């Protein structure tokens, strides 16, 4: 295993510490327990937005802490949900009296730990609402699974809920708009290579040189099936079609198209995927009015990509366009 790290046990702490030093204008980092809050402290009257999850998906979530997006991010060990004793203080740190919305990716570990943390916060008098992100259409039948996973669509939820909170919406309204994003966003991903978790020391799954894993999550889990090497245009269709079908996209729909890299893919390749996804949407009469291309929700150094589509309306578009100032997203 080759990585630019020291002891695998220290990688999250050292990385978050470096992140805090590099972005002191945007964030304040707390160590032990580890969480990251927006610089400048609570914003009186504003709904607090907290997200978190296992590390290894950077820039998610800490890279989205700042004006117009998250108030706090709670990084767990690599690919391991954070613990309630990290999450609860983060909730407390951003509670400015208007309540706190937690944005939780739908994984058993995340759900259970955030649930416990919310109980603790509630006991301390903080009103906590939660939205569960579950955009991954690769998980087909939620009757026989832990339910759809939360993957790259999380960026859209955090951005749009962040804008709603920033403009002064109350907790119910912020939760409602976050849920509206969840209801209208879908993602599907693939991997060309697995990733290696530092404390594991070997690739998360074994993939032959001529195989591609379709329907991966973002934790180096193997996907649903494998295909042979195919041109990017063909692979993109395998991602876009289930996403568009599941969303029930219709002629005239306007959408945000996010092509997300898994961490080890050159952005030039992401634009090749973007080009094809956009052509496929255009064939369906769907108009791409907003775009995002880059590494936003990653799996360490995994090579691969996911395609996310969010159905937009005027309000979601306006909230997407609202100013944001974070380490990884700003306009």
């Amino acid at each position, binding site marked *: 295993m080759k990585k630019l790290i020291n002891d695998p046990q220290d990688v999250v702490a050292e990385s978050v510490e470096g992140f805090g030093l590099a972005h002191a204008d945007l964030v304040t980092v707390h160590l032990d327990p580890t969480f990251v809050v927006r610089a400048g402290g609570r914003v009186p009257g504003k709904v607090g937005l907290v997200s978190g999850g296992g590390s290894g998906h950077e820039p998610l979530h800490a890279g989205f802490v700042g004006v117009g997006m998250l108030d706090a991010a709670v990084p767990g*060990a690599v690919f391991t949900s954070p613990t309630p004793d990290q999450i609860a203080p983060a909730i407390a740190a951003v509670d400015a009296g208007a309540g706190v919305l937690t944005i939780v990716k739908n994984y*058993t570990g995340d759900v259970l730990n955030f649930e416990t943390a919310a109980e603790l916060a509630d006991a301390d008098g903080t009103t906590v609402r939660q939205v569960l992100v579950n955009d991954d259409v690769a998980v087909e039948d939620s009757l026989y699974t832990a339910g759809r996973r939360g993957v790259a669509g999380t960026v859209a939820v955090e951005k749009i809920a962040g804008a709603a909170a920033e403009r002064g919406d109350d907790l119910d309204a912020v939760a409602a708009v976050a849920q509206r994003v969840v209801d209208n966003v879908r993602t599907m991903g693939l991997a060309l290579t697995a990733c290696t978790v530092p404390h594991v020391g070997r690739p998360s799954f074994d993939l032959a040189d001529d195989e591609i894993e379709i329907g991966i999550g973002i934790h180096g889990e193997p996907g649903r099936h494998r295909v042979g090497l195919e041109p990017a245009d063909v692979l993109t269709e395998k991602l876009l079609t289930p996403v568009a079908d599941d969303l029930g996209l219709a002629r005239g729909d306007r959408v945000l198209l996010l092509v997300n890299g898994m961490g080890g893919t050159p952005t030039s390749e992401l634009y090749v995927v973007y080009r094809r996804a956009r052509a496929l949407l255009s064939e369906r009469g769907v108009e791409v009015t907003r775009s995002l291309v880059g590494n936003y929700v990653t799996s360490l150094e995994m090579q691969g990509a996911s395609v996310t589509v969010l159905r937009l309306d005027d309000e979601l578009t306006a909230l997407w366009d609202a100013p944001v100032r974070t380490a990884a997203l700003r306009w």
Partner: protein
Amino acid sequence: MTLDAAWAVDWVRRSAATVAEHRDELVELDRQIGDGDHGENMNRGFRAVVAKLDALDAPPASVGDVMRLVATTLMSTVGGAAGPLYGTAYLRASKSGAATALGSDGVVALLEAALDGIVTRGRAHEGEKTMVDAWTPAVAAAVDAADHGAPPSAVLAAAARGAHEGAAATVALVATKGRASYLGERSAGHLDPGARSSELILRAAAEAAAAAD
């Protein structure tokens, strides 16, 4: 024969030792059908538990005190699915094990409380390829042994055997809870890591009891 706080401490230390010893195995099991962190998570948690035990001024007064220390420490260091699940199991066990010493019925109650905690938190039923599939036969075997008048150490030995059989039986199952469920049919043919760690921990309980005999 009853089991006291010293047994509980021994159980926990033996748990930590066996989890450390099987760390890589648990990682590999989880790598195959999950995300490869279960061995690391459990090892991190139990190392923290041992550190807390080592730092105590006085030995814990009751089984319940030991269980509570394990519960809060695992809850705050393990993360993932296993952290809250084991955390709740030990928390429930701590309430059940408040007495200073446990007889066979007390041991059964403690195991039942732990299983109940796991099910309440995780909402998994038997057959979903989770740690519940190790704990359910373990509790059943413990109940059966206690009903037949077995002493606490034999009750725990039965529980450990039950857990072993239950864990082994997860190989054939298709997961419908937890991370392995995303694999669908491809999850079959692999031992569930949480069932395996449960088996290890229950075996440690039996060994600690045998040593106390």
